[in-house]
């Protein structure tokens, strides 16, 4: 902002360095989960399997991007006192759209996710971006910021789900046509631990990974690695 004081008319759909930064920043320096600590609430319980986590991630990217866009479009006409309720109504409407779409397309997954789709409404990352970004920026930038934060959130979620599913259940993408059974005690799996002379006869699925606590440990380890690699994020207090 400091380099130019003369106001230039910016094109509505510019995609320059600043816009790219909006997309990449949430992946590293400003990651919603490991740095901002927002939005952990609603979705960690679904990360026991990879497929539902991918669904939730897509839903969050969609809700985050479009709620940012709509709030930004309306930002000049929302009175300050009721902005929370207006934002919540926008989010709740989008989440209802997601819920009904999922119900129509994939009913078993909808049943499995049950209340967690609805809980995207109170996902702090959506609300947080509306407050911090969309209320003060142009629609296109807000949209990009929403996509960036949704992706930054989804990446962590999918990484956690990957480890939990592979080490906890020995499968990959279970419940989809692409399911790969990696390691387990019968011949359906790629590595059969019960086969004669198997090198992996010692292997057991790690039941800790299926418990909710495992998600916390995995995120703690991710935070550890992330901050060791990027020391400016270390908590000084």
């Amino acid at each position, binding site marked *: 902002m400091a380099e130019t004081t003369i106001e230039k008319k910016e094109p509505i759909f510019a995609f320059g360095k600043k816009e790219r930064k909006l997309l990449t920043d949430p992946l590293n320096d400003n990651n919603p989960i*490991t740095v901002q*600590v*927002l*939005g*952990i*609430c*609603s*979705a*960690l*319980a679904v990360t026991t399997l990879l497929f539902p986590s991918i669904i939730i991630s897509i839903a969050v990217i969609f809700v985050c991007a479009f709620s940012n866009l709509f709030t930004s479009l309306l930002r000049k006409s929302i009175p300050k006192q009721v902005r*929370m*309720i207006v934002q*919540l*109504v926008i989010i*709740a*409407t989008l*989440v*209802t759209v997601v*819920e*009904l779409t999922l119900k129509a397309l994939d009913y078993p997954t909808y049943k499995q996710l*049950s*209340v967690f789709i*609805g*809980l995207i*409404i*109170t*996902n*702090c990352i959506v*609300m947080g971006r509306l407050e911090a970004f969309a209320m003060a920026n142009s629609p296109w930038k807000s949209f990009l910021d929403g996509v960036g934060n949704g992706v930054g959130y989804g990446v962590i979620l999918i990484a956690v789900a990957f480890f939990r599913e592979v080490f906890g259940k020995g499968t990959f993408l279970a419940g989809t046509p692409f399911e790969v059974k990696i390691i387990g005690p019968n011949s359906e799996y790629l590595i059969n631990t019960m086969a004669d002379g198997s090198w992996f006869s010692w292997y057991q699925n790690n039941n800790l990974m299926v*418990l*909710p*606590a*495992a*998600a*916390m*440990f995995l*995120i*703690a380890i991710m*935070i*550890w*690695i*992330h*901050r*060791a690699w990027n*020391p400016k994020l*270390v*908590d000084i*207090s």
Partner: protein
Amino acid sequence: MELVNVFIKAAFIENLVLSYFLGMCSFLAVSKTLKTAFGLGLAVIFVLVVTMPINWLISTYLLDEGGVLGMDLTFLRFILFIAVIASMVQLVEMVIEKYSPSLYNSLGIFLPLITVNCAILGGSLFMVAREYTFAESIAFGAGGGFGWFLAIVALAAIREKIKYSNVPAPLRGLGMAFLLTGLMGMAFLSLLGIDPASF
């Protein structure tokens, strides 16, 4: 007896924070000092106990097909629930401000934060999914709130002590809070075997 059952189950066995990760954002952000954690915990209990029966009435008599309007309006559930919660929190805030300014000042910013606390909306959605009755919904609200209160106070107490320990720098603060929550979750798992119905 059934109600005590629901209460104990919600408070300990299926603790909202430790086994469903609900209300995690404020759980991690506000647990730095014991005093504020205590205040927020009490406010969450209160809001849960108040919103749960209201949402039960709305969902049974307004949105259900057998309700007053005779239409299946369940697709409006999210919007109505969140509106009830937001206005309830606003109301609670105003009442506390009027009658007990000292409590209002000590809670301050945490009151409006409760609106986006996933535990509140999550509680209401669980209530619908599990088809609780009216009385059970109150017991579930009280139990869930109490469990949340217990968890945040415990975490805040541990975090106050752990400040004096020599934790690896990248793990300090947030990372340690995650590890502690995980360990607390595992500790609460040992309550899984309890069957409140057998008392």
